[in-house]
């Protein structure tokens, strides 16, 4: 199975591990991510005011490319997913904005692209049962906090699952043999773009997410958003430095944890060793490949 894929800017630059681990692990499941032949930045944040039609041009252009590629597009980054999905929803339901944008972009037929997050592809097209069947390194005993953040859940018409009580991420982790932890902050905001202007506020918001996951017993936290990753990791570094805390909660992308369960090595997946990376936790759980050679002959 092949599926058109939109990586977005951040996955092409500072979050290449996310992109690489996704391409490799989804290939192990028999799916090929086919990058759109032409793409541009989605604009990151969906333009909220209806008068801001020009803000739809970036994501609109990506949707045109997706339509040329067959009418479906998959993404990994939570922000890209949210922006593309909401843009498509808006262009479908609002004839006024659709017509203005169609004339500006010199196209027609906007608003009928299927925008999928990779977790949806895994649930609905591959199937979690199939994922589970392909697991060669079950993540037994690994307690993982599934962190949804904002963009996978809100608004409801762009959510990959129920906005207040989702389970797709937990079901995904269960399929890998891991134990998803039950924790209250999985849909809270990490501080988002305030990383630019209010780092203390981001530190507080991200800090409460990290401590909530730790208090509920998580060994690791997993995310699908490079901005959440950045805020959580940078905030944690600042908290460890400023407040003298010693317990670390490693933050990794869900595709890295998928690849690990499918038998890929940490290096190929970009899973960092060391204290801040997931290496020390995975070693302690016997899930680092040095402790479990290929073939399971430990």
């Amino acid at each position: 199975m092949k599926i058109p894929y939109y990586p977005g800017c951040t996955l092409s630059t500072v979050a290449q591990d996310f992109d690489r681990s996704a391409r490799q692990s989804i290939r192990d499941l028999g799916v090929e991510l086919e990058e759109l032949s032409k793409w541009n930045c989605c604009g990151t944040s969906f333009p909220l005011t209806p008068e801001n039609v020009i803000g739809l041009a970036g994501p609109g252009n990506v949707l045109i490319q997706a339509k040329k590629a067959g009418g479906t597009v998959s993404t990994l980054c939570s922000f890209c997913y949210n922006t593309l999905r909401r843009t498509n929803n808006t262009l479908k339901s609002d004839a006024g904005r659709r017509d203005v944008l169609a004339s500006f972009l010199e196209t027609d037929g906007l608003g009928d692209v299927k925008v999928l997050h990779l977790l949806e592809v895994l649930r609905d097209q591959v199937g979690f049962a199939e994922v589970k069947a392909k697991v060669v390194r079950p993540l037994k005993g690994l307690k993982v906090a599934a962190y949804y953040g904002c963009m996978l859940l809100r608004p409801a018409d762009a959510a990959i699952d129920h906005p207040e009580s989702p389970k797709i991420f937990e079901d995904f982790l269960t399929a890998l043999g891991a134990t998803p932890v039950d924790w209250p902050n999985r849909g809270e905001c990490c501080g988002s773009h305030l990383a630019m202007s209010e780092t203390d506020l981001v530190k507080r918001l991200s800090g409460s997410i990290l401590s909530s996951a730790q208090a509920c017993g998580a060994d690791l936290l997993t995310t699908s958003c490079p901005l959440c990753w950045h805020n959580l990791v940078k905030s944690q570094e600042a908290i460890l430095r400023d407040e003298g805390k010693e317990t670390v909660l490693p933050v990794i992308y869900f595709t890295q944890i998928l690849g690990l369960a499918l038998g890929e090595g940490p290096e190929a997946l970009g899973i960092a060793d060391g204290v801040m990376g997931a290496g020390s936790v995975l070693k302690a759980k016997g899930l680092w490949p040095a402790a479990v050679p290929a073939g399971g002959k430990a």
Partner: protein
Amino acid sequence: MKITLGPAGPSQSFARLVESLSGEDLSKCYQCGNCTGGCPVSFAMDIAPSQVIRMVQLGQEETVLRSNAIWRCVSCLQCYSRCPKCVDLSRIMESLRRLSLRRGHEPVTVYALPDEFIRRSPQMALVAGFRKLVP
């Protein structure tokens, strides 16, 4: 805070302007406070999210446009997902940010951002921040 209501009631022009920019009907809000309760940043706002709506209804233009609440709103949409009247407060906040930017307010000065931040940040932080915070 003193709010002066004239004999003819507060001016409606500001509220109408915000409604036209946001596409939201401000009169739907009955001040239940769910938005403020769910907002992850309300503890750091000078005016709570539900108060922002009330003050716009009452024409308190200066107070609202000078508040830090409109800049600290990160559009996480927790308020919208919990609003019993389906008021999308994120659109109202965005309208207020745009009005404030149009009046020359500059919450982030691009050239003053540290080089280190520009080099190390994910592009999405820069693009999202520029779209929200820069005139």
